[in-house]
Protein backbone atom coordinates (compact mmCIF):
# COMPACT_ATOMS: atom_id res chain seq x y z
CA UNK A 1 0.00 0.00 0.00
CA UNK A 2 2.67 2.48 1.02
CA UNK A 3 4.77 1.28 -1.89
CA UNK A 4 1.92 2.20 -4.21
CA UNK A 5 1.78 5.68 -2.67
CA UNK A 6 5.52 6.08 -3.26
CA UNK A 7 5.17 5.07 -6.84
CA UNK A 8 2.27 7.50 -7.18
CA UNK A 9 4.47 10.29 -5.86
CA UNK A 10 7.14 9.38 -8.40
CA UNK A 11 4.53 9.25 -11.15
CA UNK A 12 3.17 12.67 -10.17
CA UNK A 13 6.69 14.07 -10.39
CA UNK A 14 7.29 12.47 -13.77
CA UNK A 15 3.95 13.80 -15.01
CA UNK A 16 4.93 17.31 -13.95
CA UNK A 17 8.29 17.09 -15.69
CA UNK A 18 6.68 15.97 -18.93
CA UNK A 19 3.59 18.18 -19.00
CA UNK A 20 4.38 21.46 -17.26
CA UNK A 21 5.51 24.43 -19.30
CA UNK A 22 6.86 26.56 -16.50
CA UNK A 23 10.55 26.03 -15.75
CA UNK A 24 10.07 26.41 -12.01
CA UNK A 25 7.25 23.89 -11.99
CA UNK A 26 9.48 21.41 -13.78
CA UNK A 27 12.10 21.89 -11.11
CA UNK A 28 9.50 21.32 -8.38
CA UNK A 29 8.24 18.20 -10.15
CA UNK A 30 11.76 16.80 -10.26
CA UNK A 31 12.07 17.46 -6.54
CA UNK A 32 8.78 15.62 -5.90
CA UNK A 33 10.01 12.70 -7.93
CA UNK A 34 13.18 12.59 -5.89
CA UNK A 35 11.29 12.59 -2.61
CA UNK A 36 9.21 9.69 -3.84
CA UNK A 37 12.36 7.73 -4.56
CA UNK A 38 13.89 8.59 -1.22
CA UNK A 39 10.73 7.37 0.51
CA UNK A 40 10.90 4.17 -1.52
CA UNK A 41 14.49 3.63 -0.41
CA UNK A 42 13.56 4.16 3.23
CA UNK A 43 10.67 1.72 2.88
CA UNK A 44 13.05 -0.90 1.55
CA UNK A 45 14.90 -0.88 4.85
CA UNK A 46 11.80 -0.53 7.02
CA UNK A 47 10.78 -3.25 9.39
CA UNK A 48 7.51 -3.02 11.31
CA UNK A 49 8.24 -2.66 15.01
CA UNK A 50 11.99 -2.49 14.47
CA UNK A 51 14.16 -0.19 16.54
CA UNK A 52 16.83 2.31 15.59
CA UNK A 53 20.01 0.64 14.37
CA UNK A 54 22.25 1.82 17.20
CA UNK A 55 24.13 -0.97 18.90
CA UNK A 56 24.28 -0.62 22.70
CA UNK A 57 27.48 -1.78 24.36
CA UNK A 58 27.03 -5.38 25.43
CA UNK A 59 24.20 -6.20 23.06
CA UNK A 60 24.62 -9.40 21.10
CA UNK A 61 25.02 -8.92 17.36
CA UNK A 62 22.48 -11.64 16.53
CA UNK A 63 19.79 -10.07 18.71
CA UNK A 64 20.61 -6.65 17.33
CA UNK A 65 20.37 -7.85 13.75
CA UNK A 66 17.02 -9.48 14.48
CA UNK A 67 15.41 -6.34 15.86
CA UNK A 68 16.98 -3.36 14.16
CA UNK A 69 15.87 -1.51 11.08
CA UNK A 70 18.26 -1.87 8.13
CA UNK A 71 20.58 1.15 8.39
CA UNK A 72 22.03 0.94 4.90
CA UNK A 73 19.09 2.48 3.00
CA UNK A 74 19.07 5.33 5.49
CA UNK A 75 22.69 6.05 4.65
CA UNK A 76 21.82 5.85 0.98
CA UNK A 77 18.96 8.29 1.40
CA UNK A 78 21.18 10.77 3.21
CA UNK A 79 23.60 10.67 0.30
CA UNK A 80 20.84 10.91 -2.23
CA UNK A 81 19.33 13.92 -0.45
CA UNK A 82 22.68 15.69 -0.59
CA UNK A 83 23.01 14.90 -4.29
CA UNK A 84 19.46 16.12 -4.77
CA UNK A 85 20.39 19.38 -3.08
CA UNK A 86 23.29 19.85 -5.47
CA UNK A 87 21.16 19.19 -8.52
CA UNK A 88 18.37 21.42 -7.24
CA UNK A 89 20.76 24.30 -6.57
CA UNK A 90 22.19 23.90 -10.06
CA UNK A 91 18.70 23.86 -11.59
CA UNK A 92 17.53 26.93 -9.72
CA UNK A 93 20.71 28.79 -10.68
CA UNK A 94 20.12 27.97 -14.32
CA UNK A 95 16.46 29.03 -13.99
CA UNK A 96 17.52 32.42 -12.66
CA UNK A 97 19.98 32.87 -15.52
CA UNK A 98 17.34 31.73 -18.00
CA UNK A 99 14.94 34.34 -16.65
CA UNK A 100 17.60 37.01 -17.00
CA UNK A 101 18.15 36.08 -20.64
CA UNK A 102 14.66 35.35 -21.86
CA UNK A 103 12.54 37.35 -19.42
CA UNK A 104 10.14 34.43 -19.04
CA UNK A 105 9.81 31.10 -17.27
CA UNK A 106 7.81 29.59 -20.11
CA UNK A 107 9.74 26.77 -21.71
CA UNK A 108 7.83 27.04 -24.99
CA UNK A 109 9.30 30.47 -25.55
CA UNK A 110 12.88 29.22 -25.20
CA UNK A 111 13.25 27.84 -28.66
CA UNK A 112 16.55 28.86 -30.07
CA UNK A 113 17.82 25.34 -30.48
CA UNK A 114 16.00 23.36 -33.12
CA UNK A 115 16.64 20.61 -35.60
Amino acid at each position, binding site marked *: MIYALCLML*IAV*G*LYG*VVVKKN*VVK*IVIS*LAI*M*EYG*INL*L*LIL*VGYRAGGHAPIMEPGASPAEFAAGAVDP*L*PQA*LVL*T*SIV*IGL*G*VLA*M*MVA*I*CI*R*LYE*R*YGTFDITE*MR*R*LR*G
Partner: protein
Amino acid sequence: MDNLTPMFVVIPLAAGFVIPMVSRRLRAASDVFGVLVMSALAVMAAAGARRGGVYAVGDWVSPQGIPLGIEMRLDGLAALLLIAVNAIGLAAVVFSVDYMRRYTSKLRYYSLFMFMVAGMNGVVLSGDFFNLFVFMEIAAIASYALVGFGCGHEELEASFKYLVLGSVASAFILIGVAIVYNMTGTLNMAHVATRLAGQPLGRPMVLALALFLCGFGLKAALVPFHAWLPDAHPSAPAPVSAMLSGVVIKALGIYVMARLLFNVFGAGAAALAVLRGMGALSMVAGVMLAIGQWDMKRLFAYHSISQIGYVALALGLGTPLGIAGGLFHMLNHSIFKSLLFLTAGAVEYATGTRDLKRLGGLRARMPVTAGTSFVASMSIAGIPPFNGFWSKLIIVLACVQAGRHGLALAAVAVSLLTLASFLKVQRYAFFEAAKGGTEHVREAPPLMALAMVLLALLCAGTSLLALTGIASPALIDRAAQALQAGVFGLP
Protein backbone atom coordinates in the same frame (compact mmCIF):
# COMPACT_ATOMS: atom_id res chain seq x y z
CA MET B 1 46.02 -4.88 -3.33
CA ASP B 2 46.71 -2.14 -5.76
CA ASN B 3 47.03 1.14 -3.92
CA LEU B 4 47.05 3.21 -7.08
CA THR B 5 43.44 2.37 -7.84
CA PRO B 6 41.70 4.92 -5.57
CA MET B 7 44.12 7.60 -6.73
CA PHE B 8 42.24 7.84 -10.01
CA VAL B 9 39.38 9.37 -8.04
CA VAL B 10 41.30 11.07 -5.25
CA ILE B 11 43.74 13.05 -7.40
CA PRO B 12 41.25 14.84 -9.66
CA LEU B 13 38.80 15.32 -6.78
CA ALA B 14 41.50 16.97 -4.68
CA ALA B 15 42.72 18.94 -7.68
CA GLY B 16 39.20 20.27 -8.20
CA PHE B 17 39.36 21.92 -4.80
CA VAL B 18 43.04 22.85 -4.80
CA ILE B 19 43.18 24.53 -8.21
CA PRO B 20 40.96 27.50 -7.28
CA MET B 21 42.81 27.88 -3.99
CA VAL B 22 46.39 27.94 -5.21
CA SER B 23 45.88 29.83 -8.41
CA ARG B 24 43.86 32.77 -7.21
CA ARG B 25 46.94 34.98 -7.31
CA LEU B 26 48.87 33.38 -10.12
CA ARG B 27 46.87 33.15 -13.32
CA ALA B 28 49.12 30.65 -15.05
CA ALA B 29 49.21 28.30 -12.07
CA SER B 30 45.82 26.80 -12.89
CA ASP B 31 46.94 25.94 -16.43
CA VAL B 32 50.15 24.31 -15.26
CA PHE B 33 48.38 22.50 -12.46
CA GLY B 34 45.57 21.24 -14.64
CA VAL B 35 47.91 19.92 -17.31
CA LEU B 36 50.17 18.32 -14.69
CA VAL B 37 47.28 16.54 -12.97
CA MET B 38 45.85 15.21 -16.20
CA SER B 39 49.27 14.06 -17.45
CA ALA B 40 49.84 12.23 -14.17
CA LEU B 41 46.44 10.55 -14.50
CA ALA B 42 47.06 9.61 -18.13
CA VAL B 43 50.42 8.07 -17.27
CA MET B 44 48.86 6.19 -14.36
CA ALA B 45 46.09 4.90 -16.60
CA ALA B 46 48.58 3.74 -19.20
CA ALA B 47 50.65 2.04 -16.51
CA GLY B 48 47.57 0.37 -15.05
CA ALA B 49 46.53 -1.13 -18.38
CA ARG B 50 47.79 -4.57 -17.48
CA ARG B 51 47.00 -4.52 -13.78
CA GLY B 52 43.88 -5.60 -12.04
CA GLY B 53 42.41 -6.33 -8.67
CA VAL B 54 39.86 -5.30 -6.13
CA TYR B 55 40.61 -2.50 -3.70
CA ALA B 56 38.65 -2.36 -0.47
CA VAL B 57 38.16 1.26 0.55
CA GLY B 58 39.04 1.76 4.21
CA ASP B 59 40.35 -1.82 4.48
CA TRP B 60 37.01 -3.25 5.55
CA VAL B 61 37.37 -6.99 5.83
CA SER B 62 34.66 -9.23 4.49
CA PRO B 63 33.52 -11.78 7.09
CA GLN B 64 32.41 -15.07 5.53
CA GLY B 65 32.84 -13.67 2.06
CA ILE B 66 30.10 -11.08 2.54
CA PRO B 67 31.40 -7.77 1.24
CA LEU B 68 30.71 -4.99 3.74
CA GLY B 69 32.79 -2.07 2.63
CA ILE B 70 33.06 -0.13 -0.59
CA GLU B 71 34.97 -1.83 -3.35
CA MET B 72 36.87 -0.51 -6.31
CA ARG B 73 37.36 -2.96 -9.08
CA LEU B 74 40.06 -2.58 -11.72
CA ASP B 75 39.80 -5.09 -14.53
CA GLY B 76 40.46 -5.05 -18.25
CA LEU B 77 37.31 -3.12 -19.11
CA ALA B 78 37.84 -0.54 -16.38
CA ALA B 79 41.47 -0.13 -17.48
CA LEU B 80 40.40 0.49 -21.07
CA LEU B 81 37.91 3.16 -20.01
CA LEU B 82 40.47 4.76 -17.68
CA ILE B 83 42.92 5.10 -20.55
CA ALA B 84 40.27 6.66 -22.78
CA VAL B 85 39.00 9.09 -20.12
CA ASN B 86 42.38 10.28 -18.96
CA ALA B 87 44.08 10.46 -22.35
CA ILE B 88 41.21 12.47 -23.84
CA GLY B 89 41.14 14.52 -20.65
CA LEU B 90 44.81 15.37 -21.10
CA ALA B 91 44.29 16.48 -24.69
CA ALA B 92 41.25 18.54 -23.70
CA VAL B 93 43.12 20.27 -20.88
CA VAL B 94 46.08 21.11 -23.12
CA PHE B 95 43.62 22.53 -25.62
CA SER B 96 41.84 24.54 -22.93
CA VAL B 97 44.93 26.48 -21.91
CA ASP B 98 44.55 28.81 -24.88
CA TYR B 99 40.95 28.18 -25.81
CA MET B 100 39.39 29.00 -22.44
CA ARG B 101 40.94 32.51 -22.41
CA ARG B 102 37.73 33.76 -23.98
CA TYR B 103 35.64 32.73 -21.01
CA THR B 104 35.56 34.62 -17.77
CA SER B 105 36.46 32.17 -15.07
CA LYS B 106 39.15 29.71 -15.97
CA LEU B 107 39.63 28.60 -12.38
CA ARG B 108 36.06 27.39 -12.05
CA TYR B 109 36.34 25.74 -15.42
CA TYR B 110 39.33 23.66 -14.35
CA SER B 111 37.64 22.87 -11.08
CA LEU B 112 34.50 21.54 -12.78
CA PHE B 113 36.58 19.71 -15.35
CA MET B 114 38.47 17.87 -12.60
CA PHE B 115 35.20 16.92 -10.88
CA MET B 116 33.93 15.53 -14.14
CA VAL B 117 37.06 13.44 -14.59
CA ALA B 118 36.89 12.27 -10.97
CA GLY B 119 33.27 11.26 -11.40
CA MET B 120 33.97 9.30 -14.55
CA ASN B 121 36.98 7.52 -13.11
CA GLY B 122 34.85 6.68 -10.09
CA VAL B 123 32.02 5.26 -12.20
CA VAL B 124 34.46 3.11 -14.10
CA LEU B 125 36.14 1.79 -10.99
CA SER B 126 33.29 1.43 -8.53
CA GLY B 127 32.28 -2.08 -7.62
CA ASP B 128 28.87 -1.39 -6.16
CA PHE B 129 25.65 0.12 -7.38
CA PHE B 130 25.32 3.05 -5.06
CA ASN B 131 28.84 4.38 -5.50
CA LEU B 132 28.33 4.10 -9.18
CA PHE B 133 25.24 6.30 -8.78
CA VAL B 134 27.09 8.83 -6.63
CA PHE B 135 30.07 9.13 -8.97
CA MET B 136 27.73 9.33 -11.93
CA GLU B 137 25.98 12.28 -10.30
CA ILE B 138 29.31 14.00 -9.58
CA ALA B 139 30.26 13.72 -13.24
CA ALA B 140 26.77 14.68 -14.37
CA ILE B 141 26.44 17.80 -12.20
CA ALA B 142 29.87 18.99 -13.33
CA SER B 143 28.91 18.42 -16.94
CA TYR B 144 25.57 20.27 -16.56
CA ALA B 145 27.53 23.25 -15.28
CA LEU B 146 30.12 22.96 -18.03
CA VAL B 147 27.48 22.83 -20.76
CA GLY B 148 26.03 26.08 -19.48
CA PHE B 149 29.46 27.59 -18.93
CA GLY B 150 29.10 30.33 -21.52
CA CYS B 151 25.83 31.55 -19.93
CA GLY B 152 24.42 32.63 -23.29
CA HIS B 153 20.88 31.93 -24.49
CA GLU B 154 21.66 28.65 -26.19
CA GLU B 155 24.02 27.39 -23.52
CA LEU B 156 21.52 27.88 -20.72
CA GLU B 157 18.67 26.36 -22.68
CA ALA B 158 20.78 23.33 -23.61
CA SER B 159 22.05 22.99 -20.08
CA PHE B 160 18.53 23.06 -18.66
CA LYS B 161 17.32 20.45 -21.11
CA TYR B 162 20.30 18.24 -20.34
CA LEU B 163 19.80 18.77 -16.62
CA VAL B 164 16.12 17.82 -16.61
CA LEU B 165 16.59 14.73 -18.77
CA GLY B 166 19.73 13.77 -16.87
CA SER B 167 17.90 14.06 -13.54
CA VAL B 168 15.05 11.91 -14.80
CA ALA B 169 17.61 9.32 -15.91
CA SER B 170 19.28 9.45 -12.50
CA ALA B 171 15.89 9.03 -10.83
CA PHE B 172 15.21 5.90 -12.89
CA ILE B 173 18.60 4.52 -12.00
CA LEU B 174 18.04 5.20 -8.31
CA ILE B 175 14.70 3.36 -8.39
CA GLY B 176 16.54 0.50 -10.05
CA VAL B 177 19.13 0.55 -7.28
CA ALA B 178 16.36 0.46 -4.65
CA ILE B 179 14.75 -2.54 -6.33
CA VAL B 180 18.07 -4.38 -6.59
CA TYR B 181 18.74 -3.78 -2.92
CA ASN B 182 15.25 -4.88 -1.96
CA MET B 183 15.45 -8.11 -3.92
CA THR B 184 19.02 -9.16 -3.14
CA GLY B 185 19.84 -7.37 0.11
CA THR B 186 23.18 -6.18 -1.19
CA LEU B 187 24.59 -3.52 -3.47
CA ASN B 188 27.97 -5.02 -4.23
CA MET B 189 27.99 -5.95 -7.91
CA ALA B 190 29.82 -9.24 -7.44
CA HIS B 191 27.53 -10.16 -4.57
CA VAL B 192 24.38 -9.26 -6.50
CA ALA B 193 25.69 -11.29 -9.43
CA THR B 194 26.22 -14.39 -7.29
CA ARG B 195 22.77 -14.03 -5.73
CA LEU B 196 21.17 -13.76 -9.15
CA ALA B 197 23.24 -16.45 -10.83
CA GLY B 198 21.71 -19.71 -11.88
CA GLN B 199 18.06 -18.68 -11.85
CA PRO B 200 15.88 -16.68 -14.23
CA LEU B 201 15.37 -13.05 -13.30
CA GLY B 202 12.20 -12.43 -11.36
CA ARG B 203 9.76 -9.74 -12.43
CA PRO B 204 11.14 -7.09 -10.08
CA MET B 205 14.64 -7.63 -11.39
CA VAL B 206 13.39 -7.35 -14.96
CA LEU B 207 11.84 -4.01 -13.99
CA ALA B 208 15.13 -2.95 -12.44
CA LEU B 209 17.00 -3.97 -15.57
CA ALA B 210 14.54 -2.04 -17.73
CA LEU B 211 14.98 1.03 -15.52
CA PHE B 212 18.75 0.73 -15.81
CA LEU B 213 18.52 0.37 -19.57
CA CYS B 214 16.34 3.49 -19.81
CA GLY B 215 18.46 5.48 -17.38
CA PHE B 216 21.84 4.64 -18.81
CA GLY B 217 20.40 4.69 -22.33
CA LEU B 218 19.46 8.30 -21.66
CA LYS B 219 22.95 9.05 -20.43
CA ALA B 220 24.40 7.33 -23.50
CA ALA B 221 21.94 9.16 -25.80
CA LEU B 222 20.70 6.04 -27.58
CA VAL B 223 17.93 6.89 -29.94
CA PRO B 224 14.64 7.07 -28.15
CA PHE B 225 16.45 9.07 -25.49
CA HIS B 226 18.77 11.19 -27.61
CA ALA B 227 16.95 14.54 -27.62
CA TRP B 228 19.33 16.34 -25.29
CA LEU B 229 22.61 15.48 -26.95
CA PRO B 230 22.54 17.57 -30.14
CA ASP B 231 21.77 20.63 -28.01
CA ALA B 232 24.06 20.00 -25.08
CA HIS B 233 27.23 18.90 -26.81
CA PRO B 234 27.57 21.78 -29.30
CA SER B 235 26.70 24.40 -26.68
CA ALA B 236 29.57 23.53 -24.38
CA PRO B 237 33.04 25.02 -24.87
CA ALA B 238 34.98 22.92 -27.40
CA PRO B 239 37.22 20.97 -25.00
CA VAL B 240 34.15 20.13 -22.93
CA SER B 241 32.25 18.99 -26.04
CA ALA B 242 35.23 16.79 -26.75
CA MET B 243 34.98 15.28 -23.29
CA LEU B 244 31.18 14.94 -23.39
CA SER B 245 31.01 13.31 -26.80
CA GLY B 246 34.32 11.53 -26.44
CA VAL B 247 34.05 9.92 -23.06
CA VAL B 248 31.13 11.03 -20.88
CA ILE B 249 28.43 9.27 -22.89
CA LYS B 250 30.58 6.15 -22.84
CA ALA B 251 31.74 6.11 -19.24
CA LEU B 252 28.30 6.99 -17.87
CA GLY B 253 26.23 5.20 -20.47
CA ILE B 254 27.60 2.40 -22.59
CA TYR B 255 30.19 1.23 -20.08
CA VAL B 256 27.69 0.84 -17.27
CA MET B 257 25.16 -0.86 -19.52
CA ALA B 258 27.76 -3.36 -20.69
CA ARG B 259 28.97 -3.95 -17.17
CA LEU B 260 25.50 -4.53 -15.77
CA LEU B 261 24.26 -6.62 -18.66
CA PHE B 262 27.23 -8.92 -19.00
CA ASN B 263 28.75 -9.04 -15.53
CA VAL B 264 25.85 -8.60 -13.14
CA PHE B 265 22.54 -9.60 -14.68
CA GLY B 266 24.06 -12.19 -17.00
CA ALA B 267 23.24 -11.18 -20.56
CA GLY B 268 19.78 -12.45 -21.37
CA ALA B 269 18.70 -12.76 -24.98
CA ALA B 270 15.88 -10.23 -24.54
CA ALA B 271 18.10 -7.56 -22.98
CA LEU B 272 20.69 -8.02 -25.70
CA ALA B 273 17.98 -7.71 -28.33
CA VAL B 274 16.85 -4.42 -26.80
CA LEU B 275 20.43 -3.11 -26.78
CA ARG B 276 20.90 -4.24 -30.37
CA GLY B 277 17.65 -2.63 -31.44
CA MET B 278 18.45 0.69 -29.76
CA GLY B 279 21.91 0.55 -31.29
CA ALA B 280 20.70 -0.07 -34.82
CA LEU B 281 18.06 2.64 -34.49
CA SER B 282 20.57 5.20 -33.17
CA MET B 283 23.04 4.28 -35.87
CA VAL B 284 20.59 4.98 -38.68
CA ALA B 285 18.67 7.90 -37.15
CA GLY B 286 21.82 9.69 -36.00
CA VAL B 287 23.40 9.75 -39.42
CA MET B 288 20.14 10.74 -41.13
CA LEU B 289 19.79 13.73 -38.85
CA ALA B 290 23.48 14.59 -39.12
CA ILE B 291 23.75 14.85 -42.84
CA GLY B 292 21.48 17.89 -43.11
CA GLN B 293 23.21 19.95 -40.45
CA TRP B 294 25.15 23.11 -41.25
CA ASP B 295 26.46 23.84 -37.78
CA MET B 296 29.75 21.99 -37.57
CA LYS B 297 29.51 20.99 -33.93
CA ARG B 298 25.84 20.02 -34.23
CA LEU B 299 26.70 17.76 -37.14
CA PHE B 300 29.42 16.11 -35.06
CA ALA B 301 27.01 15.71 -32.15
CA TYR B 302 24.50 13.81 -34.30
CA HIS B 303 27.33 11.59 -35.44
CA SER B 304 28.04 10.78 -31.81
CA ILE B 305 24.55 9.29 -31.58
CA SER B 306 25.19 7.31 -34.73
CA GLN B 307 28.59 6.00 -33.62
CA ILE B 308 27.35 5.13 -30.13
CA GLY B 309 24.74 3.14 -32.00
CA TYR B 310 27.52 1.10 -33.59
CA VAL B 311 28.96 0.34 -30.17
CA ALA B 312 25.60 -0.66 -28.69
CA LEU B 313 24.78 -2.78 -31.74
CA ALA B 314 28.08 -4.64 -31.54
CA LEU B 315 27.80 -5.23 -27.80
CA GLY B 316 24.20 -6.33 -28.30
CA LEU B 317 25.32 -9.11 -30.62
CA GLY B 318 26.81 -10.73 -27.54
CA THR B 319 29.37 -12.74 -29.53
CA PRO B 320 33.08 -12.49 -28.65
CA LEU B 321 33.83 -10.80 -31.96
CA GLY B 322 30.96 -8.35 -31.46
CA ILE B 323 32.13 -7.43 -27.98
CA ALA B 324 35.71 -6.91 -29.17
CA GLY B 325 34.50 -4.77 -32.07
CA GLY B 326 32.19 -2.72 -29.87
CA LEU B 327 34.87 -1.98 -27.30
CA PHE B 328 37.44 -1.19 -29.98
CA HIS B 329 35.01 1.17 -31.66
CA MET B 330 34.27 2.78 -28.31
CA LEU B 331 37.97 3.54 -27.81
CA ASN B 332 38.37 4.75 -31.39
CA HIS B 333 35.28 6.91 -31.27
CA SER B 334 36.45 8.62 -28.12
CA ILE B 335 39.67 9.57 -29.91
CA PHE B 336 38.39 10.76 -33.27
CA LYS B 337 35.24 12.40 -31.99
CA SER B 338 37.09 14.46 -29.42
CA LEU B 339 39.58 15.39 -32.12
CA LEU B 340 36.72 16.51 -34.36
CA PHE B 341 35.28 18.69 -31.62
CA LEU B 342 38.69 20.19 -30.91
CA THR B 343 39.17 21.06 -34.58
CA ALA B 344 35.70 22.61 -34.62
CA GLY B 345 36.76 24.59 -31.57
CA ALA B 346 39.93 25.74 -33.34
CA VAL B 347 37.92 26.80 -36.38
CA GLU B 348 35.52 28.72 -34.19
CA TYR B 349 38.42 30.26 -32.28
CA ALA B 350 40.03 31.49 -35.47
CA THR B 351 37.00 32.54 -37.51
CA GLY B 352 34.31 33.19 -34.92
CA THR B 353 31.76 30.98 -36.61
CA ARG B 354 31.08 27.30 -37.08
CA ASP B 355 28.43 27.68 -39.75
CA LEU B 356 29.61 25.63 -42.72
CA LYS B 357 27.91 27.99 -45.15
CA ARG B 358 30.08 30.90 -44.05
CA LEU B 359 33.37 29.04 -43.77
CA GLY B 360 35.74 28.14 -46.58
CA GLY B 361 39.32 28.13 -47.72
CA LEU B 362 40.68 27.24 -44.30
CA ARG B 363 43.02 24.66 -45.73
CA ALA B 364 45.60 27.26 -46.68
CA ARG B 365 45.05 29.39 -43.60
CA MET B 366 45.00 26.68 -40.94
CA PRO B 367 47.08 23.75 -42.19
CA VAL B 368 47.35 21.94 -38.85
CA THR B 369 43.65 22.15 -38.11
CA ALA B 370 42.78 21.13 -41.65
CA GLY B 371 45.17 18.19 -41.55
CA THR B 372 44.04 16.84 -38.19
CA SER B 373 40.40 17.36 -39.10
CA PHE B 374 40.98 15.38 -42.28
CA VAL B 375 42.52 12.52 -40.30
CA ALA B 376 39.60 12.48 -37.87
CA SER B 377 37.02 12.65 -40.67
CA MET B 378 38.59 9.74 -42.47
CA SER B 379 38.75 7.81 -39.20
CA ILE B 380 35.08 8.29 -38.39
CA ALA B 381 34.08 7.50 -41.97
CA GLY B 382 36.00 4.24 -41.79
CA ILE B 383 38.70 4.80 -44.40
CA PRO B 384 41.80 2.64 -43.97
CA PRO B 385 44.46 2.90 -42.55
CA PHE B 386 42.85 4.85 -39.70
CA ASN B 387 41.42 3.25 -36.58
CA GLY B 388 37.75 3.69 -37.44
CA PHE B 389 38.12 1.35 -40.38
CA TRP B 390 39.32 -1.57 -38.28
CA SER B 391 36.67 -1.36 -35.61
CA LYS B 392 33.89 -0.95 -38.17
CA LEU B 393 35.30 -3.90 -40.08
CA ILE B 394 35.19 -6.02 -36.95
CA ILE B 395 31.62 -4.92 -36.22
CA VAL B 396 30.44 -5.75 -39.76
CA LEU B 397 32.22 -9.11 -39.65
CA ALA B 398 30.65 -9.82 -36.25
CA CYS B 399 27.18 -9.06 -37.66
CA VAL B 400 27.78 -11.43 -40.57
CA GLN B 401 29.19 -14.08 -38.28
CA ALA B 402 26.14 -13.85 -36.04
CA GLY B 403 23.96 -14.35 -39.11
CA ARG B 404 22.49 -10.84 -39.01
CA HIS B 405 23.09 -9.77 -42.58
CA GLY B 406 20.55 -6.96 -42.43
CA LEU B 407 22.42 -5.31 -39.58
CA ALA B 408 25.73 -5.75 -41.40
CA LEU B 409 24.25 -4.06 -44.46
CA ALA B 410 22.89 -1.23 -42.32
CA ALA B 411 26.29 -0.74 -40.71
CA VAL B 412 27.96 -0.45 -44.11
CA ALA B 413 25.29 1.91 -45.42
CA VAL B 414 25.56 4.15 -42.36
CA SER B 415 29.30 4.20 -42.83
CA LEU B 416 28.85 5.46 -46.39
CA LEU B 417 26.45 8.18 -45.24
CA THR B 418 28.98 9.13 -42.57
CA LEU B 419 31.61 9.47 -45.26
CA ALA B 420 29.25 11.67 -47.29
CA SER B 421 28.55 14.03 -44.42
CA PHE B 422 32.21 14.35 -43.52
CA LEU B 423 33.14 15.04 -47.12
CA LYS B 424 30.62 17.85 -46.85
CA VAL B 425 32.43 19.23 -43.80
CA GLN B 426 35.81 18.92 -45.47
CA ARG B 427 34.61 20.56 -48.64
CA TYR B 428 32.75 23.51 -47.15
CA ALA B 429 35.15 24.31 -44.33
CA PHE B 430 38.54 23.52 -45.73
CA PHE B 431 38.70 22.81 -49.45
CA GLU B 432 36.29 25.24 -51.05
CA ALA B 433 37.58 28.66 -51.99
CA ALA B 434 37.33 31.28 -49.27
CA LYS B 435 34.13 33.31 -49.26
CA GLY B 436 35.88 36.45 -48.15
CA GLY B 437 36.38 37.79 -44.67
CA THR B 438 38.98 35.16 -43.84
CA GLU B 439 42.08 37.25 -44.48
CA HIS B 440 42.71 37.71 -40.77
CA VAL B 441 42.33 34.01 -39.98
CA ARG B 442 45.43 32.45 -38.51
CA GLU B 443 46.41 28.98 -37.33
CA ALA B 444 45.37 28.03 -33.82
CA PRO B 445 47.87 28.74 -31.00
CA PRO B 446 50.62 26.13 -30.50
CA LEU B 447 49.10 24.36 -27.49
CA MET B 448 45.77 23.88 -29.24
CA ALA B 449 47.63 22.58 -32.28
CA LEU B 450 49.64 20.27 -30.02
CA ALA B 451 46.49 18.74 -28.53
CA MET B 452 45.02 18.16 -31.99
CA VAL B 453 48.23 16.63 -33.38
CA LEU B 454 48.44 14.37 -30.34
CA LEU B 455 44.94 13.01 -30.96
CA ALA B 456 45.56 12.69 -34.70
CA LEU B 457 48.61 10.57 -33.96
CA LEU B 458 46.48 8.45 -31.65
CA CYS B 459 43.97 8.00 -34.48
CA ALA B 460 46.65 6.47 -36.60
CA GLY B 461 48.34 4.76 -33.65
CA THR B 462 45.36 2.85 -32.32
CA SER B 463 44.87 1.22 -35.69
CA LEU B 464 48.11 -0.62 -34.88
CA LEU B 465 46.21 -2.37 -32.10
CA ALA B 466 44.49 -4.40 -34.79
CA LEU B 467 47.87 -5.89 -35.78
CA THR B 468 47.54 -8.60 -33.16
CA GLY B 469 44.62 -10.06 -35.01
CA ILE B 470 41.21 -8.82 -36.03
CA ALA B 471 39.44 -10.91 -33.43
CA SER B 472 41.45 -9.67 -30.49
CA PRO B 473 43.11 -6.29 -30.87
CA ALA B 474 45.76 -5.65 -28.24
CA LEU B 475 44.47 -3.75 -25.19
CA ILE B 476 40.90 -4.60 -26.20
CA ASP B 477 41.30 -8.32 -25.63
CA ARG B 478 41.53 -7.98 -21.86
CA ALA B 479 38.48 -5.72 -21.73
CA ALA B 480 36.53 -8.11 -23.93
CA GLN B 481 37.54 -10.99 -21.71
CA ALA B 482 36.23 -9.10 -18.70
CA LEU B 483 32.82 -8.93 -20.36
CA GLN B 484 32.86 -12.47 -21.71
CA ALA B 485 33.84 -13.93 -18.36
CA GLY B 486 30.16 -13.82 -17.48
CA VAL B 487 28.83 -12.75 -14.12
CA PHE B 488 31.25 -11.78 -11.38
CA GLY B 489 32.27 -14.36 -8.85
CA LEU B 490 33.04 -13.21 -5.35
CA PRO B 491 36.75 -12.39 -5.00
